[in-house]
Structure formats: structure tokens, C-alpha cells
């Protein structure tokens, strides 16, 4: 390796160092997966595998902006939002209204997701509820709404959407990754990290704290819209019950990926790596025919250990909260 590449590698590491152990875990899990479950990672099968993982990956990305925005920011409603969007899109837009054109469905997913996120953003930014309280409220509302709209699974999805659960899965993932990369070039990204790091300092130096925070939740909502598309693709129908489960997985994945729950540190890479860890871990343990019960123990223990090893990174400024009176 040339010295140039080496120093480039170092620079990359220092920027993405927060991913730390999650990345190492990912490498190990990937090697183990290739050895034990090569069938799922062949040229054809890998797209299906990736398609199945996509809702988890995207949910983890969706919960990231709210966490980055700091001050206990967290969007518990991401899962139920995905669920209610799945019902609205598949049952109502595609089913009842018969609008199955990709443009209409994708646009609707993004807009409705943004609206959901905006509700959270206003509750947190303008009404100034604690994020856990606000998004717990919308969690209950979204999940209740989904079941009210559609008490049991129903509907079918157009063929283009089904494709998103195999080869087509690259489209949402690449679009999201490219969008995130583009976001990093904007002043908004700087502002988001600034308010997550030290809100008071950011405010004093003229960052529009409230707007930035609201937009973080809107961004999370839009990403939940993308995640809902991926979810609809995998399900192939509208199912009101599966959404809420994604909240805890998404939060787990982001924490595993080294994103600080205190805000200001972390990002897309962390969310994706963490989510892939979880997905591969579940996949592998299932393959080993480890009972789901043992899997559950593994899952919990690995989560705790991974977060512990990240402790210095996650060393939480909420301990130095002070002066909020």
C-alpha cells in the first residue's frame, strides 16, 4: 500500500472511527455468513437478502437525524410511521384509489413521511416537548391509526414495487446514500451536528436551532417514507402490525453503530453498519438453527457488549447537562 493510500485510510478511519467495533463485528459476521450461508450471498440470492434487510437498514437511517439533533432527541415513532405509510400506500393509494404509478406512489410516500416527521418536529421544536414524550405520543397515534384503517393484512403491490425487494433494492439504498452524502456538503449538516453537540453554543453563534431541529425530524420522516416503500416491497401487502417493531431495532442499530444517543456524533455509516450487524446476526443464528430463544439472548448480550465497548464514544454529555433550570 502506498503511503498516500495509508494516510487516506487513516483519515477515513478518524472520520468514521465512531463505527468502531460495529464495523469489526460486521467483518466477522460477513465472513461467517459467507462460510456458513453461502447460498444467501450468491449473485442472485444476495439481492433478495439485501431486499429483506432494506427496511431495517432504512429504518436505522431514518432514526439517525433525530438522534443527531441532540437534547435527548430520538424518534420513537419511526416504526409506526413506516407501518401507517405501508397501509396508506398499499391499501388506499394503490388499492382503493388505483394509483399505482411509481411516481405517484414514491412521491406520496415521501410527502406523507415528511408530514409525519413534521408533526414530530413541531411537537419537539416549537411546542418543546421532550422528544421521548412527543414521539411516544405519535408512536401510539400512528400505530393505532394503522390498525384502525386496516384491522388485518390486505392488498397487493404492483410489480415495480415488488422488484424493490430484490435487485431494485439498490435504487432506494443508493438514493439515500447519495442524498446523505449531498447533505454533508450543505450548511444544514454542520448546523445539525452543532446543535447536537452543544445547543447553547450553536444558538449563540447564530444557528437557527428550532428550524434545524424541526428539519431533522422531517428528514427522519422522509427517510421513513423510503423505508415504508422497502417494507411494502418485502411484505407485498399492507400489514398494520409489523411497523412498530422497527422502532427498537432501528434504535438498537444506530446505538450499535456508534451514534451517540446524546447527539452530535454519528451518521449514515454507523446506522447502516449497525443495522447490517443485527440483520446478519439474526440471519446467521437462524441458519444455525439456534432457537429463536437463544438468538434473543445472543442478541441482547451482543447489544450490551457492543455498546459497552463503545462507551468512551457514547460517554454521554447528558451527564453534564446542568444549567438547564
Amino acid at each position, binding site marked *: 500500500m502506498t503511503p498516500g493510500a495509508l494516510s487516506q485510510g487513516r483519515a477515513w478511519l478518524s472520520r468514521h472511527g465512531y463505527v468502531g467495533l460495529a464495523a469489526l463485528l460486521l467483518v466477522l459476521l460477513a465472513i461467517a455468513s459467507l462460510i456458513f450461508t453461502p447460498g444467501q450471498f450468491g449473485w442472485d440470492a444476495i439481492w433478495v437478502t439485501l431486499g429483506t434487510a432494506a427496511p431495517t437498514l432504512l429504518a436505522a437511517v431514518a432514526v439517525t437525524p433525530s438522534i443527531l439533533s441532540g437534547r435527548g432527541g430520538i424518534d420513537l415513532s419511526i416504526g409506526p410511521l413506516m407501518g401507517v405509510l405501508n397501509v396508506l400506500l398499499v391499501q388506499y393509494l394503490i388499492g382503493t384509489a388505483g394509483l399505482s404509478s411509481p411516481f405517484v406512489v414514491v412521491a406520496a410516500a415521501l410527502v406523507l413521511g415528511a408530514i409525519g416527521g413534521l408533526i414530530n418536529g413541531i411537537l419537539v421544536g416549537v411546542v418543546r416537548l421532550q422528544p421521548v414524550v412527543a414521539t411516544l405520543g*405519535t408512536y401510539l397515534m400512528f400505530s393505532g391509526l394503522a390498525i384502525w384503517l386496516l384491522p388485518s393484512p390486505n392488498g397487493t403491490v404492483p410489480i415495480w414495487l415488488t422488484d424493490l425487494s430484490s435487485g431494485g433494492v439498490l435504487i432506494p439504498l443508493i438514493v439515500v446514500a447519495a442524498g446523505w452524502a449531498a447533505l454533508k456538503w450543505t450548511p444544514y449538516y454542520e448546523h445539525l451536528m452543532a446543535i447536537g453537540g452543544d445547543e447553547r453554543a450553536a444558538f449563540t453563534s447564530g444557528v437557527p436551532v428550532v428550524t434545524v431541529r424541526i428539519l431533522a425530524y422531517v428528514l427522519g420522516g422522509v427517510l421513513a417514507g423510503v423505508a415504508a416503500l422497502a417494507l411494502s416491497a418485502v411484505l407485498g401487502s399492507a400489514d398494520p402490525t409489523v411497523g412498530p417493531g422497527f422502532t427498537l431495532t432501528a434504535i438498537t442499530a444506530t446505538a450499535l453503530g456508534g451514534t451517540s444517543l446524546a447527539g452530535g456524533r454519528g451518521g449514515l455509516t454507523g446506522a447502516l453498519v449497525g443495522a447490517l450487524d443485527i440483520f446478519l446476526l439474526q440471519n446467521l443464528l437462524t441458519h444455525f438453527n439456534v432457537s429463536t*430463544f437463544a438468538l434473543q439472548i445472543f*442478541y441482547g448480550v451482543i447489544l450490551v457488549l457492543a455498546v459497552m465497548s463503545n462507551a468512551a464514544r457514547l460517554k454521554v454529555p447528558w451527564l453534564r447537562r446542568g444549567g438547564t433550570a
Partner: protein
Amino acid sequence: MRALGGRHARSLAAGIVVILIFLAGSILVHGFGSFGSIRSLLLLGAFLGIASVGQTMVVLLGGIDLSIPFLMDFGNVVAAEMTGSGHPFWQVILVILVLAGLVGGLSGFISARLRIHPLIITLGMGYAVQGAVLLWTKGFPSGAAPQGLPGFVSVSAHIGPFPIPPIILLWALVAIAIEFLLQRTVFGRRVYALGSSPEAARLALVPYVSTWVWVFAVSAMFAAVAGVLLLGFTGSAFGDVGSPYLFQTVATVVVGGTMLTGGEGGYIGTIVGTLLVTELTMIMTSMGVSSAIEEVFLGAVVVLLVMLYGREAHVRERI
């Protein structure tokens, strides 16, 4: 700034809402104001209230405990299994309390020692505990409710000649004990101090790690006890009995005016929050509202009530 006696202002506001909802219920639902219905309210509230004891203390400390539902499952299933294999009740409860305390204490220790947000640690520990329980029972918990337990928690149970289920009395005693612990003991004041400002408390030599360990241990123990009590109510073990309680315990605490940022609030608020959540659910159920709409409504109530009295200061006021 907050006026004198402000400590209870938010709980008081929530209390008024409880009464208003009760009055509305009496008008909307025939017989809602009756003795029998109040008894049901207190009975159902007792389960939620006891499960929320730990959440209250953890939130006062500035944390959050997501392992509560899993420890309820644990208490529920272990009690049934142990009773089924012939262990007397005192052994059952002792084993459950010790194990739950160890699990909770470990969560508290890791979170405090490594300064990791307890949200993730308690969630991970919860998954692990649930997995262990499922593995042990192979996914099909069996056994029976300890003798006498159904008579302790059922709606038709009574204390001597009084037609009041003993669990309501238990809840009252627990409430008094916890408020006493929080307000009148060294331990309780340390919980508030750490929740108010961890750094200032540490510089005043408030023991940080041990307080966290104990609070999380107590939280886990109360969750497990709530799981055992629910076993008496349902009669047979159910490995997922706790799941509605994950967010409900958080809801009762915040609706009762305890701030998630720590150091402000108390168990009185949680009692009020418990009654509010429970009566709301009862009214809607008896009006034939679907559980989906109930959920929507509960979410809206949480947001609206906290809007009334739990708003945070604007950043410009915190510089």
C-alpha cells in the same frame, strides 16, 4: 420561576384532569361512577401503578428503563413454573426478587460505570432475559398461579368484610413506602440530586454508581412483582404479558408530571398518571371504541397533557 409548592403543581393539574375525565365517563357511560367501577379502576390501576414504580425512580434519576416489560414476563413465567413444580410461594417470590434485582442492578451498574445511556442497556438486558425465559420454558410456559394469589388480585376478592381486593391495599402501601423513600430518606434525596445535576451531585459526594445500581435493581424487582401479580389475575403464565407496559409505564410517569430530564416529580404524579391512563382505557372500552382508536387517543392525551405542563425552556432561556 416556579411558585412555592410547585413540586406538586403538575401532579395537581393531572389530578384535575383525572377528575374531569371521571365526570365525563360518568355521563357518557352508564354506571361508570358506581362503586364497582371505581373498584375496577383501582384494581387495574394497581398492576400498572406497581409496574411503574421503577420507571418513576429511574426517570427521576434521569434515565429510562425499557427492561420493565421483559422483567414482568420473567416474573410471570417463573412464578407459574416454580409453583407448578411445587415450590412454596415464599421461595417463588424470593428467587424472583433476587434474580430480578441482580439483572436490574447490572443494568444500572453498566450504565453508570461506563456512562452509557440506560435506554440501550436496559433494552439489551431485557432481550437477554426474555430469551432466557423462553429458552427455559421452550416457548411454552406452563405451571399454575400460586395458591391464594387469584384471591388477592381478583375483582371479587375482599379484605375481611370489605369488598376491596387486597391488591388495592398493597398498591396503597407501596405508594406510601415509595413516597417516603423518595422524600424522607438519604437514598431518595440522592436520587433527586443525581437526577437534577449529576455533576454537581458528584462534587457533593453523592455516590453515583451505587445509587444507580439500587434504583435499577428496585425497578426490576417491582416489574417482576407486577408480573407475578398479573399471573394471579390471568390464572396462567403468558410469556408476553408485559409488552403493553413498555410505553404505558413511561406514559404514566410523564403524564404525572415527572420530567424525563430527571430530578423533578415523584410517585404521587405517577399514581395520578396511572389513574388517568386506566380510566381513559376503561371509558373507551365500555363505549365500544376499538383498541386501535384507544391507542390513538392515549397518544394524543399524552402529548396534550404534557403540552399543558411539561414544556421545556427555549434555548435562549438556558444560556
